[in-house]
C-alpha cells in the first residue's frame, strides 16, 4: 500500500480551501488541510475523515500547519472523528499555528486531542501508540 493517493476538494468559499490526502506510512494516512476550517469547509473535512475511517483501521494525522482559523463546527468534526475512532486507532493533530492552538485551548479541546507541532511528532505518536498497543 505504498501508492500515494490524492484526494482534493476545492471549496467555493471566500478563502481557498484544500484537503490533500496521502499515506504517511503503511498504517497511517495524512490529511493536509490548507485554508480556513469554518462552517463552509468543515463538511469537506468531515467527509475526508469519514472516508478514511471507512477505509479501515488506519491511524490518522491531520496536518493543520497551513490552517489559519478553525471554528466550532470544524472542531466539532474533529471531536466527532476522535470519538468515532476504532479501538487501537489514533488520531493526531499536527499544528504549530498560534491562532489555531489558541482556539483549541479556548474551547478546552486541547485536552482531548494529541496536538503536536510537526508531522514527525505526529507520526511518532501514532506509531508509538500503535506499538504500545500492539
Amino acid at each position: 500500500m505504498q501508492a500515494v493517493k490524492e484526494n482534493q476538494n476545492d471549496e467555493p468559499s471566500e478563502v481557498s480551501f484544500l484537503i490533500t490526502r496521502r499515506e504517511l506510512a503503511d498504517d497511517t494516512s495524512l490529511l493536509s488541510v490548507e485554508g480556513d476550517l469554518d462552517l463552509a469547509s468543515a463538511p469537506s473535512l468531515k467527509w475526508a475523515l469519514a472516508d478514511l475511517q471507512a477505509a479501515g483501521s488506519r491511524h490518522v494525522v491531520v496536518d493543520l500547519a497551513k490552517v489559519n482559523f478553525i471554528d466550532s463546527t470544524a472542531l466539532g468534526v474533529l471531536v466527532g472523528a476522535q470519538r468515532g475512532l476504532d479501538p487501537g486507532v489514533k488520531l493526531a493533530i499536527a499544528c504549530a499555528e498560534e491562532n489555531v492552538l489558541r482556539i483549541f485551548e479556548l474551547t478546552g479541546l486541547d485536552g482531548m486531542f494529541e496536538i503536536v507541532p510537526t508531522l514527525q511528532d505526529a507520526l511518532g505518536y501514532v506509531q508509538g501508540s500503535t506499538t504500545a498497543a500492539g
Partner: protein
Amino acid sequence: MPRRSGARPLIAPSASLALASSILIALAALAPNGAAAKRTEETTTSEAAPAVSLAPAEPALTKAQQRAERQAVRAERQAAEAQAAAAAAEARAAEHAAKRAEHAAVREARKGADGASASPPASARAGTQSAAKADTTHAEKKREHELQAEQRRHEREVNGGLLNPRRKTREAREAAEAKASEEEAEGGAFEKAVSGSGAGRAPVAAGGVSSSEGGSPTVQSPSTSAVASAHDGRAARTAHRRASLRRGAAAGTGAFGLGSGTALAAGAESGSGEGGASGGGGHASGPGHKPSAAKGESTIVRTVTQIVGVIPSALWLLIGLLALAAAAFAVASRVAAGRARRLDRQRQALLEDVGLLQAALLPELPERLGPVATSAAYRPASGPGAGGDFYDVFALPEGLLAVIVGDVSGHGREALPHTTLLRYTLRAYMEAGLAPREALRAAAPALERQLGGSFATVVLASWDPRGRRLTYACAGHPHPIVTGLDPSKSIIAASAPPIGAGNATGSRQTVLSIPGAGTACFYTDGVIEARTSGELYGSDRLATALAALRAETADASLQAAALLDRVASETDRRPDDMAACLLELAGEESREGRAGAPCRPSAPGVLREELVLDAREANGKRARRFLQAAGVGEPELGASLEKARTIAAEHGSALLAIDLAGERPRVSVLQDNIAPLRARALARTQEVAL
C-alpha cells in the same frame, strides 16, 4: 338595387331597368323640368318604398367617408325613383279615373239622349268628378299601403343583421305614423269625394299639383310628400326643399321621411360628398334631421349607435374573443389573488408559530433585574430561528442574577430541541444553588447523554450585586467581555471543553470584581468569528464596540441589539448566528460594595481562577500552563501540582484555585470530588422542587 316589382298592379314592371332609370332620375333631379325626366319617372318601377326605407338604414353605415358619399348618391337616386314611381302611379290613376269619368259621361249622355230630356251636364260632370276623385283616392291609398308593406319588408331584411333596437322602435313609430297619415288621407279623400269640389281639376291634379292641393296628404306622410313634390315637375328642386321643410315642421316623421328628404336635399345640392362620419343621409338631411335630434337622442348616443352598427362581424368575433380572454384573465387573476391571500395567511400563521417557538427558545428578558439592566439580541445567519444559539437571564433566590448563553453545534431544526434542553437543564441547576462551574459539571453528563452526538458550548454566570462579583464558567465557549477589562488578558489555558465532546467539563471558573459601573457582554462565537475583509472580528474589536456602546445608545433594553448592529455594520461576512446578552451594572452600589472590602481597586479585575483536575490531567501540560498563565511561578507551581496530584489520586479530582486579588497570585489546592457535588446538587434540586 334590384327591387321587387311584381306586386305592383298599377305600374308595369317590365320597363324598369334599374340602372338606366337611376341615371335618368339623377338627371331629372338636376334639371327637373324636362319631359323626358317626367316620362322616366312614370316608367320607373315602384321602388319608392324600398328606396325610401333604405335611406334610414343607410345613415348607420358611416364608417368611411367614401362609403357615405356613395350612400348619399344612392339615396338620392332612390328618392328620385320614389318620386317618379309615385308620380307615375298618380298619373295613371288620374288618367284611368278620367277615362272612366269620360266613359260614364258619355254613357250618361247617351242615356240622357236615349231617355227623357237632353242632358244635365252639371250632374254628369259632378258624377264624373266624384268618380274620378274616388278612384284617385283609392289608387293613392292602395299605393300607400303597398309602399308601407314594401318598406316594412325591406326594413325587416335590412334589420335582420345588426340593426339596433332603437332603430326598430323608430321604424315602428314611423309605420304607425304612416298608417295614421294614410287614414287621414283617406278621410280627406272621402270628404273631397263627397263634396265633389274641384270637379274638372281632378285629372289636372293627377297631372302633378297634388303637393299644393291638399295639405293633409302632403304633410301627413313623408312618402306622400315626397311623391307630391316629385309631381311638381317644374320646380322639383324647390318642391323637394319644401317637402323636406314641411316634414321637419310636421315633427315626427322620423327616419322614413328623413331618408327621402336627405336624398332629395343631397340631390339638390348636386350630390355633395360631405357625408363624413355622420353618414350620408344623416348629414345631408338638413332640415329633416332636426326633428329626430329633438326627440332626445344625444349626438353621442347616436354616434356610438352608428359606430356599433357598422362593426363588421369579423370584428365582433374578435371583440368576443377578447372579451372571453379578458374574462379568463379576470378569473385567473382572481384565483391567483385568492391563493396569494391564502398563502399569505398561512405564512403569517407560520411566522407567528416561529415567533412563539423562538420566544420559547429566546425568552423576552425583563428590562431590569434589580439594579441590573439587561438586554439580549439574536441575529440568525439565515432564516428565522435557524441557529442553535440560546440565552437566558433570570434572578436567583439569593438575590443573585444568572446568565446562560450557549450555542449548540449544528443549525436549523435539529438544533432547536437541544437549545431548549440545555437552557432549561442548566437553569435548573443554577436555580438549585450551584455555582456556574458546579452546575456545568453536574449537568454535563446528563446533557451529553441527551445531545445524541452533537455538542454545545455554553457560558454560565452569576452576578452578586452585594459583593459586586461576576462568577462565570465556560464550556468550550468564549469568555465574556467586561468593560474595563482587556479580553486578551483572560486566562484561556486549560479551558473546559464543550458539553457533549466526550470529556468532563465544568472544570474552569473565573470570578471577576466589577466595583464601578460597567457592562458585561456574553456572546456566541458567531460574533467574534464574523469576518471583516477576511479577518476575524475578534474579541478585541468587540470590546471596543462594547465600550463605545454606552455613549451611543441611551435605551438600556436596546444595547445588545445596537451592539450586534454595530458588529454587522463592521463585518462583511457573518457565517454563524450571533447572540449577545448584556448586563449593565450600575455604579451606585459600588460604595456599599467597597464598604466591605476597602482595599479593592475601582477598576474591574480578576479575583480568582479555578481549575478542576482529575488524576490524569494533574500530570499534564494543561495544568502547568494554567498556573503559568495566572502568573504562578516556580517553586509554587510545582508544589501546587504535586499537591493536586495527591488529592486527585485520593479523591478523583482536585481543585486548583488561584487568588489574584493580592499583589501576588496565591494558589490553594482543594478537594473537589464530583461525587459529593452531585449528591449535594440532587439534594438541592429536591429542596427547590418542594
